[in-house]
C-alpha cells in the first residue's frame, strides 16, 4: 500500500521580483485604468485563478468571479450551513461540476436570498475551488511509524468493525463512543441511531449539538414535555415585539435578520429588544439594548417575570387552563425587583421595566434565542424562563407569538428528531419502557436491546462537576475504547482543549482507537485519528434537512461525490453509505449485531427508502413525518412537522390548542412519571419553573481581570473546515483575533493588529488585537472558529496557538451538560 501524499492545490505564486515591483509602486494601490493595465501585465498568468475572471491584459472587464454563463442546469436543494434552511439552486456546468449557487425564489424561507456563506457554497466541493487543502478521497490508517497509508473501504470498515467487536468483548458496548454532528441528513441520523442503539447497543452516543442547543432541548422537554420550537418564521411578520436574547441574527442567521428588518419596516413596526453583552449588529439596531453582564440571563428573566406579574401583564385564564406551578413561580420571582436585578446584571432598573412593559403590553411577542442563552450560566433554566414568559402572558401558539430557539447547524433538528445520537428515535423517552419497546419492535431487535438509559454526554470535567460523567472523562480514565467522530471537529470545538488533546495524545497508552469521518484531508481532528474515512458532503448526496422552524427540506445531489472514479476501493461515500457498510460488516462478523431476522440493522443506503422507514418510526409521535414524501416535500418547498397523511401541511405552529406533551405517555423526558413537569392529572399542561439565579463558576478577579466571550462571524462556519477553504470568505476574516475595548486597549498599550497573549487558568493563545467598542471595558471577545492543529493553519499562524477553546472552561450546564463557552476569566498582555 502506497503512502498517501496530500494533493497540493495549484496556486500561482508571484515571483519575488514581481512582488517587489508591486510594493515599490504606490500607484498600484489606486483603482485607475492605467493601474489595471499595469496589473494586467503582471497578472496574465493569474487569469484562471479564482474562476477565470482576470483578463486585464486585453482590457476586458474583470468580473466578479461567479457568473451563470456556464450553467446548463439548476438543481434545487437547501443550504448546508446554518439552520435557517434557505432554499438554494446549485448551478451545474456541462462537465457536471457545480459552478454557481443562487437562492430559490420560490422558497418561503428566503424568497431567493442567500447569505455570503450560501452563495459561495459550491466552492467547497471540488479541489480546484478550494483555497487550501483538499477533499478526502482515500480511507487511511496509520502504519507502524504513525504515518497515514491508504487502505481500501473494505479494509477500513473491517478494521472499524473489528475494533467495535473487540471493545464490546473486553469492556462492554458502552466503551464504544460515537460522536456525530448537526450536519447530516435525517436518513443518516436515523441510520446511525439504529446502528448505535440497535446493533452496537451503546449508550455512549452524543453529537456536537450538545455544544449547540442542548439547553433548548432540555428547557422545552421539561416545560412542554417535548422538544420542538413551537413557532415558525412567519411569526416574524406577525409580531409586535421581538425579544432577541443571546442571539445575533444579523451575523449568524442572516436570512432571519433580513425578514426581521423587513418586518420592522412594515406598518406594524414591531419593537425590538436585544439582550447581549456585546454591541452586535443586531444590538445596534435595537430599540432597547440590554447589555448585561455575562452569565446573568436567569436574573434578567426573573426580573422580567417579576414585572409582568407585578403589573398584571399576564393572562390568568391561560395560566389556569394550561399551566402548572404558577404560584411557586410568582413567589420565587417576587424578590427579583428591577433594583435587585440591576445589581446583578449591571443594567438600569428602568430598562428592565421597559423591556417587561413592552413584552407585557405588546399583543404579540416573538422571542428568539441561541448560544448567548444556551452557552451561558443557567442555559436550561433561561430557556425554561423564556417559555414561562410566553406561557404566563398566553403568548404562544398563535401567529406572532412564540418562544423560538434557533440552532446553529443545518440539521441539528433532524438529529434531535431521529435519535441520531443522544435521543431515542421519534422524540421518545429513554426512561419509558413502552417507548423503548416500540422502537425495538419497529427495528425487529430483541427486547432489552436498546440501552434503557440516556446517553453519556460528550464532555465534562469530573474535577469541577463530579456527578456528570462524559466521553471526555472516559478518555481520561481509559474506559473509552473506540471513539468514532463523524462530521464534526472536536479538536477545535470542545472546551479546555489542552486537556482533551492530552487525553487523545498518541503518547497516552489509555487512549481510545480514534476514527474520524470527514470531508477534508487534513483537518484538525485527524491529528489524533487512527483511521480516517472520507465522506461525501452537501451537494454530493440526497437527503432531508429539518430547519429551525421544523420545516423538512429536500437536499438534492447535484454532483458526484469527490473521488467517484476511484470507487469501489476508494473515493468519498455518503455518511449513509458508510454507516451501512459498518452495519453490514458488524452483522457479517458477529450475530450479536444482527436484527432478529439475522440481518444488518441498516437496511438500505438509498435515502428515500430510509426516509420511508423513518416515517414509520415517527408515525403518531410528536415529530410525525408520516404525511411527507420526497415528492411532496419538493413540491411544497419543504413541509413542517407534524405532518400526517390527513393533514400534510398542518405543522406550522405547535400548541395552538394549549395542550402540551406533558402526559407520561407523550413526554419525551422524565426518569419517572413523578418528574416535576409530568402532568399528574393527565391534562397536558405546561410546567412553569421557579428557579434562582446562580453566579457563574468563574468570574474576573485580580489575576484574570477580563470576561472572555466567544462566538461567531458571518463568514465562517463552526471550525472552518469548509469556510477557511473558500477564499472569498476566508480573506475577510483570515485569522483569529481578540476584540478589546478602546479603554482597555489604551491601558494595555495595544492597537489593532498587535499580537496579544490571552491567558486563562487553562491555557494560552496569541492572537491579533482588534480595538472596538463592540465589547465593554473589562470584556473581550474571540471567535470560536479557529483551530491550530491543521498544518495549513500552523503555517499561516507561524505556529502560534490561536484556538479560543484552549482558554474556555469545561463546565457544563447542570441539566443538559452544554458547556459554558460564553464566559470565563482571562488576562491579556501585549505579546
Amino acid at each position, binding site marked *: 500500500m502506497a503512502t498517501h501524499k496530500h494533493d497540493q492545490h495549484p496556486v*500561482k*505564486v*508571484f515571483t519575488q521580483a514581481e*512582488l517587489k515591483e*508591486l*510594493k515599490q*509602486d*504606490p500607484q*498600484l*494601490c489606486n*483603482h485607475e485604468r492605467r493601474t*489595471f493595465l499595469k496589473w494586467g501585465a503582471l*497578472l496574465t498568468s*493569474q487569469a484562471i485563478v*479564482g474562476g477565470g475572471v482576470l483578463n486585464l491584459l486585453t482590457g476586458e472587464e*474583470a*468580473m*466578479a*468571479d*461567479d*457568473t*451563470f454563463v456556464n450553467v446548463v442546469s439548476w438543481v434545487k436543494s437547501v443550504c448546508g450551513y446554518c439552520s435557517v434552511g434557505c432554499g438554494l439552486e446549485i448551478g451545474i456546468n456541462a462537465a457536471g461540476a457545480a459552478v454557481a449557487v*443562487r437562492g430559490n425564489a420560490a422558497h418561503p424561507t428566503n*424568497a*431567493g*436570498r*442567500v*447569505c*455570503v456563506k450560501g*452563495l459561495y457554497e459550491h466552492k467547497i466541493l471540488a479541489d480546484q475551488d478550494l483555497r487550501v487543502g483538499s477533499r478526502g478521497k482515500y480511507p487511511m490508517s496509520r502504519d507502524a511509524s504513525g504515518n497515514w497509508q491508504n487502505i481500501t473501504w473494505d479494509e477500513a470498515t473491517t478494521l472499524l468493525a473489528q475494533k467495535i467487536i473487540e471493545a464490546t468483548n473486553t469492556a462492554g458496548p458502552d466503551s464504544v463512543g460515537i460522536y456525530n454532528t448537526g450536519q447530516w441528513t435525517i436518513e443518516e441520523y436515523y441510520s446511525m441511531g439504529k446502528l448505535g442503539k440497535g446493533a452496537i447497543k451503546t449508550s455512549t452516543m452524543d453529537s456536537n449539538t450538545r455544544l449547540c442547543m442542548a439547553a433548548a432541548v432540555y428547557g422545552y422537554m421539561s416545560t412542554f414535555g417535548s422538544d420542538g420550537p413551537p413557532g415558525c418564521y412567519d411569526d416574524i411578520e406577525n409580531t409586535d415585539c421581538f425579544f432577541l436574547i443571546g442571539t445575533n441574527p*444579523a451575523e449568524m442567521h*442572516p436570512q432571519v*435578520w*433580513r425578514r426581521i*428588518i423587513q418586518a420592522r*419596516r412594515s406598518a406594524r413596526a414591531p419593537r425590538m429588544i436585544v439582550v447581549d453583552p456585546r*454591541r*452586535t*449588529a443586531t444590538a*445596534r*439596531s435595537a430599540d432597547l439594548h440590554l447589555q448585561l453582564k455575562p452569565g446573568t440571563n436567569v436574573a434578567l428573566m426573573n426580573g422580567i417575570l417579576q414585572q409582568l406579574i407585578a403589573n398584571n401583564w399576564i393572562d390568568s385564564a391561560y395560566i389556569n387552563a394550561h399551566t402548572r406551578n404558577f404560584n411557586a413561580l410568582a413567589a420565587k420571582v417576587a424578590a427579583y425587583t428591577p433594583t435587585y436585578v440591576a445589581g446583578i446584571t449591571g443594567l438600569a432598573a428602568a430598562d428592565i421595566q421597559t423591556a417587561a412593559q413592552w413584552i407585557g403590553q405588546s399583543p404579540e411577542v416573538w422571542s428568539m434565542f441561541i448560544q448567548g442563552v444556551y452557552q451561558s450560566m443557567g442555559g436550561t433554566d433561561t430557556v425554561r424562563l423564556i417559555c414561562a414568559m410566553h406561557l404566563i402572558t398566553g403568548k404562544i401558539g398563535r401567529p406572532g407569538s412564540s418562544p423560538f430557539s434557533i440552532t446553529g447547524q443545518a440539521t441539528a433538528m433532524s438529529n434531535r428528531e431521529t435519535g441520531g445520537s443522544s435521543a431515542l428515535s421519534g422524540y421518545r423517552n429513554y426512561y419509558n419502557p413502552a417507548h423503548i419497546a416500540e422502537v425495538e419492535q419497529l427495528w425487529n431487535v430483541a427486547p432489552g436491546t436498546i440501552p434503557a438509559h440516556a446517553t453519556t454526554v460528550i464532555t465534562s470535567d469530573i474535577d469541577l462537576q463530579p456527578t456528570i460523567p462524559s466521553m471526555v472523562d472516559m478518555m481520561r480514565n481509559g474506559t473509552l475504547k473506540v471513539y468514532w467522530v463523524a462530521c464534526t471537529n472536536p479538536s477545535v470545538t470542545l472546551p479546555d482543549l489542552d486537556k482533551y488533546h492530552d487525553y487523545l495524545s498518541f503518547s497516552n497508552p489509555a487512549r481510545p482507537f480514534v476514527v474520524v469521518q470527514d470531508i477534508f484531508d487534513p483537518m484538525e481532528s485527524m491529528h489524533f485519528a487512527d483511521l480516517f474515512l472520507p465522506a461525501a458532503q452537501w451537494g454530493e448526496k440526497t437527503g432531508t434537512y429539518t430547519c429551525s422552524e421544523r420545516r423538512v427540506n429536500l437536499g438534492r445531489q447535484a454532483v458526484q461525490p469527490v473521488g467517484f472514479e476511484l470507487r469501489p476501493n476508494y473515493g468519498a461515500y455518503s455518511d449513509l453509505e458508510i454507516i451501512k457498510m459498518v452495519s453490514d460488516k458488524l452483522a457479517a462478523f458477529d450475530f450479536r449485531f444482527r436484527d432478529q431476522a439475522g440481518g444488518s440493522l441498516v437496511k438500505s443506503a438509498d435515502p428515500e427508502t430510509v426516509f420511508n422507514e423513518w416515517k414509520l418510526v415517527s408515525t403518531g409521535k410528536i415529530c410525525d413525518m408520516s404525511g411527507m414524501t420526497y415528492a411532496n416535500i419538493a413540491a411544497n418547498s419543504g413541509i413542517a412537522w407534524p405532518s400526517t397523511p390527513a393533514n400534510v401541511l398542518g405543522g406550522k405552529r405547535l400548541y395552538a390548542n394549549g395542550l402540551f406533551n406533558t402526559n407520561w405517555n407523550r413526554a419525551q423526558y422524565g426518569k419517572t412519571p413523578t418528574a416535576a413537569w409530568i402532568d399528574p392529572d393527565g391534562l397536558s399542561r405546561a410546567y412553569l419553573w421557579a428557579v434562582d439565579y446562580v453566579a457563574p463558576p468563574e468570574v474576573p478577579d485580580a489575576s484574570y481581570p477580563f470576561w472572555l466571550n466567544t462566538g461567531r*462571524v*458571518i*463568514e465562517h462556519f463552526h471550525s472552518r473546515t469548509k469556510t477557511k477553504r473558500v*477564499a*472569498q*470568505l*476566508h*480573506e*475577510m*476574516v*483570515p485569522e483569529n*483575533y481578540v476584540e478589546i475595548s478602546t479603554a482597555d486597549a489604551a491601558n494595555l498599550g495595544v492597537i*489593532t*493588529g498587535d499580537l496579544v497573549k490571552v491567558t486563562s487558568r487553562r491555557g494560552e493563545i496569541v492572537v*491579533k488585537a*482588534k*480595538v472596538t*467598542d463592540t465589547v465593554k471595558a473589562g470584556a473581550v471577545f474571540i471567535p470560536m472558529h479557529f483551530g491550530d492543529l491543521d498544518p495549513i493553519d500552523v503555517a*499561516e499562524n507561524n505556529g502560534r496557538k490561536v484556538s479560543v477553546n484552549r482558554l474556555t472552561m469545561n463546565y457544563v450546564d447542570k441539566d443538559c451538560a452544554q458547556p459554558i463557552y460564553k464566559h470565563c476569566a482571562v488576562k491579556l498582555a501585549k505579546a
Partner: protein
Amino acid sequence: MMLSRTFASIFKVFLAGLLLTSASVWAAKGGGATTTTSGVLPGEDTSYAIEKEYSCLTGGCHETNTQLLTDHANSLMTHAMVKCNACHGTHTASQLGLPKPNLTGYYPGIGAIGYVVGKDRCLTCHSAQLLSAAGHRSNPTTCTGCHVPHMFLK
C-alpha cells in the same frame, strides 16, 4: 535587509491601525448611521458591518472613496450584513499568490484588483424581482444602470 523588513512591517501595522481607527471613528460619527437620502431608516445602524469590513475599507484601499463609503453606509444591504465580499469576492491574497492578507487586509503596494459585479451576482439573490411581472417588465443587461451601486434602497 532585515531592518528594512522590520520597518516595513511596523509601518504597515501603524498605517493599518491608523486607517482602521479613522474608519471606526467615521462610522461612529454617523457614517454608519442614517441620512435623509438613504436606503436605511432612522434606527437602522450599519456601523457594525462597516467595522467588520476593515479588510476592504482600510489600508490605503477603499476608504478614500467617500461616495462609495457614504452609499454603502446608507444601504439596506449593508444593514442586512451584505458586505463587500458577497458581491465582489475578495481580491487580495489568493489572486496575488500570497499566503493570506493580514488582519486588516493591507499590503503596501498591493491593492485591490477591482472587480465589476455582473448581473448574475445580483440574480443570486434577486431573481424573484426580475421574474416578477410587478418588478420588471424588461430584462436589462445590467442592474447598476438603474440601481445605484453600493446603496440599495429596498
